[in-house]
């Protein structure tokens, strides 16, 4: 339960910090930290406009997308505090639930009959399909490392004892950061701040959404960022910490993650769309390196 509360709190400021970082890096003053959430709140009270081409799919998709993200939060532990739900292999449910939400967003983009949204749908489907193996290999590596297969048990049995395991932890954090960027259609695969629809991924899918639906989608993105932040943060929490320390680590990690994402977005160029699969495959390659690293650590190899 505590994870969900914390994630909701952190998600209020996350995009604010990210945008502020971008603004400062770009030499601007930038909007306030809560501007993003204010925009979302304003959207919830706005009129909803539908395209006449759309069907029921377009109306239910944002709700399913948002529920899938909330549902996936149920599996995320917070240090030694167990999540609401956990069972062996719950990470499979976690990944597939997120995929269900994405499935609906993709078909709702196709529902509008717009060529741009079709393009976004296609890219979203392709990139999230390609990035999935990286996530699964990463979790499987840690499942092998700890002999457990639920998020809670994995995090509770990770003990970074020597330098070698720290390297693995840093690599895992790197992978999770990149996966989060790809999942949210951010740089380097897509640029949400561009003015050209042809170069967008996530943003071009939701051109026709408005009002409460758009608010849910935008807030979902913040939640997703914080969700991956929490996955990273859990590597650094261990049972010897008090609650206060754990909270401190949590917010510190989320803050650093937001700044990292902001800096990445400021100083990185967007890849050509054609090159994106290669970039995503490289993530898979790094997670395979982690897998082999753990094999070496367990002295099964070499």
């Amino acid at each position: 339960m505590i994870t969900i509360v914390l994630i909701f709190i952190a998600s209020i400021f996350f995009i604010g910090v990210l945008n502020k970082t971008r603004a400062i890096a770009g030499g601007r003053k930038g909007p306030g930290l809560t501007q993003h959430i204010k925009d979302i709140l304003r959207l919830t009270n706005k009129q909803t406009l539908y395209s006449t081409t759309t069907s029921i799919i377009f109306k239910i998709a944002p709700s399913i997308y948002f529920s899938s993200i909330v549902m996936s939060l149920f599996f995320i532990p917070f240090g030694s505090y167990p999540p609401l739900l956990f069972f062996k292999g719950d990470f499979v449910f976690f990944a597939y639930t997120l995929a269900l939400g994405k499935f609906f967003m993709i078909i709702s983009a196709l529902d509008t009959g717009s060529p741009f949204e079709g393009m976004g749908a296609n890219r979203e489907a392709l990139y999230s399909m390609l990035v999935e193996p990286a996530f699964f290999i990463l979790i499987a590596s840690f499942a092998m490392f700890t002999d457990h297969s639920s998020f809670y048990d994995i995090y509770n049995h990770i003990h970074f004892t020597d330098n070698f395991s720290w390297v693995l932890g840093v690599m895992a954090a790197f992978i999770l950061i990149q996966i989060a960027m790809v999942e949210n259609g951010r740089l380097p695969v897509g640029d949400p701040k561009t003015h050209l629809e042809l170069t967008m991924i996530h943003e071009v899918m939701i051109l026709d959404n408005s009002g409460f639906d758009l608010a849910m989608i935008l807030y979902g993105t913040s939640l997703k960022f914080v969700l991956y932040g929490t996955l990273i943060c859990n590597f650094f929490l261990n049972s010897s910490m008090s609650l206060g320390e754990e909270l401190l680590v949590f917010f510190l990690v989320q803050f650093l993650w937001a700044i990292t994402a902001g800096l990445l977005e400021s100083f990185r160029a967007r890849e050509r769309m054609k090159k994106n699969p290669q970039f995503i495959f490289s993530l898979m390659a790094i997670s395979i390196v982690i897998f082999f690293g753990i094999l070496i650590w367990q002295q099964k190899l070499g």
Partner: protein
Amino acid sequence: MDFLISLFFYSLLATPLLLLLPKNIKSYFNFSINLFLAIVSTCMVILSYQKNGSIDYFLTDLSIIGLVHLKIDELSSIFILVINFTVLTSSLFSIGYFKKRGSTGALSLHLFSFAILHAAMLLVCMVQDLLAFVVFWEIMSLCSFVQVIFDSEKPANIKAALNYLIQMHINVVLLIIAIVWLYNKTGMQNFEALHFYFSSKETSNFPLFLMFFLSFGMKAGFIPLHTWLPHADPAAPCPSAGLMSGAMIKLGIYGILRVLMYVESDLLEIGIFIYTISMLTGLYGIIQASIQKDLKKMLAYSSIENIGIIGMGIGLGVLGMAQHSQLITFMGFAGALMHIINHSLFKSLLFYTVGSVYIQTGTKKIDQLGGLIKKMPVTAVLFLIGSLAICGLPPFNGFISEFLIYSGMMGLLHADFSMDILELAALISLVLIGGISFFTFTKAFGIVFLGKARSQQALEAKEVTNFMHLPTIIIVLTMLSIGLAPDIFVKLISRTVFLYMPSEDTGIVIHQFDSISKVGVVSIIFIFLIATIYFIRTLKVKANKEAYGPTWGCGYIGDTEKMQYTGSSYTGNFSQLIKPIVEVKTDFKKYEETELFPVNRALKTESDDPIESKGIMGAIKKLSQFISIFARIQDGQTQHYILYAFLFFSIMLLLTVFNIIH
């Protein structure tokens, strides 16, 4: 049992009536025969369940084959139930499907062979004697051949059917070779002989298993022996295609599972073999499915993919047996068996809904459809549910079997290095299979049912009758019940899984039921969460008022349906990645520099199955080239023939003179 068996065979006497009855009641009569056969065989299953799982019966009436041993055990039971369910939904759906289609003659033959096919499939699951097994296997192939050839006006269908007929006979030959091999070594010709063959220590188990696997794997659709499936399934009418993909190809899996029951040594090699070939099958199947433009062909390739997933479960189970791990064995076989059930449900559902689309629009080309959700809302929702389930997304049934297989994989990670590498490959394959089917089915649903109609037929489509929705809705309810209460179903199949485990180690299994039943609970919570959020959203949206307008065209207002993304453009960037596997051919005349006023051009792309076009057709070409050398002998000149006879006699004479032959 006596009574049930005689009921079973006497009911077949009613099938010729199907040829004589008036056209409009044929389908109803066919359904009643199927229903009767299903009830009788289900009673047999219940009877065997009461008698601790297996029941024997010796059939003496079939004088040609001699004494036939029928046996219903835990393995047959599952397949009998899957066959019955799929046949019933299929024949129920075909009542509506054939109302306005087909000539009386074609329909008579079709339904007659359908009823026989049902009986043959049930008998294949029951017989223990291999000779009788081949007979029923052959009847099954012939009946399904008649199913494929229903639309015989189209030359492509005749070609597909002949292809099917030939390949199925190669399949029978392979099966007979395996049986003769077995008979030669043991002197017996029933499945029990496998026990004697495999338990003798001096012979390796792998070669004979491989022979059986080639034959059964061909029926199931493992690569590279799958090439009949993508032709036969699209040619068959949708109810039969649903039955063939949903149940008939599973009998290949039944054969493999039956043989595996007796295998004792070489488990590691067999496990690695099945596991690897299944990964390749799954990936190849779904990659081919993703670029198909024909809905039925796409579903046929996706069947190959699902056979791959089932095979991965089986391979995992065998590796578990080799590693002496109860947990992996249980998860692997339970995953495979659950996926057999699940696939029979969602694949038949998808074929029936595509059938509905086909009879209303007259096309099954993805790029010619669009916007059907407004014309055929129920069909669209049913197809959507089928797509979600086939992608393995919760809360539907597909997730359960994939979850079981993933859990088994996690168990195998704790073995040695070579297993870990295999596991890594399997994990990447299964995740990619899931991802690509996600890609494929978002495309299929999005392009066919959403957006604007791309052709006049799609624009004028109407919803099918409620009666035609009946079988599909029954399937969806079954799928949901598996998704929401998986522990009940896994418990039911666990009796079959125990056949592959040396001792019934319930401790481990009970521990697993815990996480499986949690999946069900979590799925229910998920549905409630979606419902709650949607409810809040509806209230909020109603309060803020709704409005309607055209789709945002990014400044462009000349909005036509031709601007929409098509199936081909959706797969465009992906087909760049998979170029070597799918061989997309583009037919387009390039613009010349001197061409000041270009004339109208057409762009045509098509994809190829390289295993078929390069592998099999290439081999056949080489073979026929080799054989054509001998064709020179037959040149039609009498003098030469006399010369051949003379040479033959001379050689014979010489050989006898020198005492080489006596």
